[in-house]
């Protein structure tokens, strides 16, 4: 039962991280792609640091340092902020590589027909890059899920933490650990399966 609650926590935290991290990564990537001065450099530094930062250390920093500058934060928001900051950096790189590979001729054609940059992005660029980025984004989502037990260090009870608790109560930790392993496998499998079916649907719709 505790494991089921842990599973809900793991899934909801991951979904929150995805909901914030994927669009934020796109915004960061656009900032670098458009070479907006100063902001682009800040994003580059942020990505470089976050890619080298263990999630455990990031969660500890957010949870303990934010109250120090006058922003009180509970474990669950701290977990969501950390997961989002972490995954946004990796998603930024995924979006950026899709943007860098995007044919320049199409952007120029959109400009020539009088589209504003926003309209061109909405109708020309975005519909193509999200399909190219999808496999890499889903791969990053599975990494996010496998990293999520880091939030247990500030007391969030996810699958892993729930399994440890049950093991400590029953003095037989192996069964809850094995059930937890299966739960993670199922969650990861659902995301990979969803990606595959979106891809099939897209191939059928656009036939390429």
């Amino acid at each position, binding site marked *: 039962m505790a494991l089921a609650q842990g599973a809900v926590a793991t899934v909801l935290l991951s979904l929150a991280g995805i909901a914030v991290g994927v669009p934020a990564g796109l915004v960061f990537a656009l900032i670098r792609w458009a070479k907006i001065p100063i902001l682009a450099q800040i994003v580059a530094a942020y990505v470089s640091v976050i890619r*080298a*930062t*263990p999630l455990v250390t990031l969660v*500890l920093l957010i949870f303990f*340092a934010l109250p120090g500058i006058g922003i009180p934060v509970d474990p669950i928001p701290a977990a969501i902020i950390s997961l989002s900051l972490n995954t946004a950096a990796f998603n930024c790189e995924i979006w950026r590589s899709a943007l860098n590979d995007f044919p320049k001729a199409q952007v120029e054609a959109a400009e020539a027909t009088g589209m504003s940059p926003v309209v061109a992005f909405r109708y020309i660029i975005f519909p193509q890059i999200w399909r190219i980025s999808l496999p890499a984004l889903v791969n990053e989502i599975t990494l996010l899920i496998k990293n999520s037990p*880091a939030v247990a260090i500030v007391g969030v009870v996810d699958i892993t933490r729930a399994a440890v608790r049950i093991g400590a109560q029953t003095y037989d930790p*192996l069964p809850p650990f094995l059930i937890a392993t299966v739960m993670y496998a199922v969650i990861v499998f659902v995301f990979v399966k969803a990606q595959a079916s979106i891809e099939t649907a897209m191939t059928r719709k656009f036939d390429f």
Partner: protein
Amino acid sequence: MLQEFSIVLDHKDRLLIGLGNTVWIATISTILSTVIGAALAMALMSRHVMLRRAVRVFIDAMRCVPFLLLAYIVYYGLPSLGVRFDNLSAGIASLSLYNAAYMGEILRGAWVSLPKEYAEAGEAYGFHGFKLFHRIIMPSLVLAAVPVLGNQVIQIVKDTAFLTIIAVPELTHEASAIQSMYYVPFGAFVAAIALYWLICRMVEFVVQYTEHLADLRR
């Protein structure tokens, strides 16, 4: 905020001990996981169907489990089967085993795209079996896979931070200790993150240098 950093600087000894531990734990785990990963890659490329299937199941299972869960299984779970580790060896064992699965997959990927002529030329010169792998295939694999292997090493460095949860005195653990004694969360964890960043830049530097050497050899 500056005051926080000066307190952390006063206790830089602890931070540096943590840094040292993180570096050597990551180094040993990298070596062990590369060796085990090479063995797994050999098994994946072997002619025995059963061996191939068994190793495939092991690798896929490892890639589903979060690292922390594996560390818990090794540290808390295995004693009930009669295998007992202290926290440091449990940490190194789980890091090596976990990343060996990824290393195995990386090396297999490089092996599949390796030109057949390499192995054939080796055989023509009289290399067989393990010697062929060790002297001909393995060096080309490592050179071809260096950038991806480098990413995995960075992953290992970051995974060591999980070991603070089983009380291994690595960098994050020491930063945590300093912060809980003097309440300097910002200084302690930002210092730790800066050190992690330095380690990762160093790994990236080694990767670039190796690629440069590989280019010269070609």
